[in-house]
């Protein structure tokens, strides 16, 4: 699994960090998404999928 994030779409809702703080963080500067793990291990795959589904701005994609 590979996670991609698009900071230009991100609206800083924080839903990804709320869902899995091991995978995502937010920039102190403008609150946009910071990806911590591009290739999540098995135990974080569900969190990655959930975060992508919850993201209000469609800024997270899973491939």
């Amino acid at each position, binding site marked *: 699994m590979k996670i991609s994030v698009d900071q230009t779409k991100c609206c*800083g809702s924080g839903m990804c960090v709320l869902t899995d*703080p091991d995978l995502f963080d937010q920039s102190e500067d403008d609150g946009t998404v910071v990806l911590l793990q591009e290739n999540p291990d098995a135990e974080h795959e569900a969190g990655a999928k959930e975060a992508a589904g919850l993201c*209000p*701005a*469609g800024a997270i994609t899973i491939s």
Partner: protein
Amino acid sequence: MTELISEKLPTTRQTPFDPPAEVTAIREQARVSRLKFSDGHLGWLVTGHHQVREILGSPKFSNRPENHHLLDVRFQGDLPEEKDKRKVEPGMFLSQDPPDHTRLRKMLQGQFTVRRMNQLSEWIGQIVDDQLAHLRTFDGRADLVKEFAMPVPSLVICALLGVGYEEKSRFQDDTAKLLSLDSTFKEAMEAFQRIQEFMRELVARKKENPGDDMISDLIATGEPTDEEASNMAMLLLIAGHETTANMLGLGTFTLLQHPDQLKILKDEPGVVDNAVEELMRYLSIIHFGPVRTALEDVEIEGHLIRAGDTVVMHVPTANRDPEKFPGNPEELDLRRPASGHVAFGHGIHQCLGQQLARIEMRIGFAKLFQEFPDLRLDVEPEEVPLRTDMGIYGVHSLPVAWSS
């Protein structure tokens, strides 16, 4: 295809906690249906969870008020003139589209991150403790809204913005007038202008004497104009105290009326995070919207929404859509996986302060029932005054009692 047409948005509730049965019946027939507006426009009513998310997440829909046909739930007999309706105040990012919205919201996003909000937990806990101690000074009975639900978020947002809580007379009554469905357009505008004036003064004061607060930080970026900064601050002030206050008030009423669920919250403290999500899903206090207008033709669920058509999203029914929340979505179930609700909206306008609101609610509900485990309603449930007359639903007051 024969389309379901509603002459008017049904707003009459049969119970305090459920959306109008007529809207639920509409969803059961068609998640996307037609709705007539007071100016004769034939727009749309969207009641399905998936469809609400799709529209709110789409760049093909605008939130600029000049694009919207006006929903006839307010300003009866006193409609704004076209020129007034068109005016978008600088800095009011909620009423703007990209790229203006993006530029303004970005200036604030860094202040509302999950990490920053988590760092406030202890401080918010202290505010809640102080307010509960205040509640206890009332001899076994009080109005929970006045003494707890309203002050907690007000104190929090005032301190974050650097507004003196003792100055609340400058904005609290006017905020209520602004949000009341019974206000005429003129009354609402006058209230708006008075709050705006207060915020202009505040921004001028912060420029002179910066403090350790969000408005000073916003000004220090050098990005917004003074007018933008004061309107942005106003938006945060209004959004920050009315919404959370109503969730705390109505949420407490709901829990008191669902003793089996309240018992779960008391017995299993770990359930509180999900309980907050479920209460938000179940209550959906933004009960007439949000509204969007199509910028181009869009097909949703086999319906062609044409450019210029205004669409009303019905959050309370969308949040009870069995396609998204299978089982018994009409029931309050604090253990249900409730994430994915649209009570904070969806898309680029999704609530900026949601992580703050979550922490206030988690701490607020948990501590309230720890400190007052035998809290009970002090009137008959049907006597609780409901905010059916307000843009944000809730209770006007909640008389409660406890054994001292």
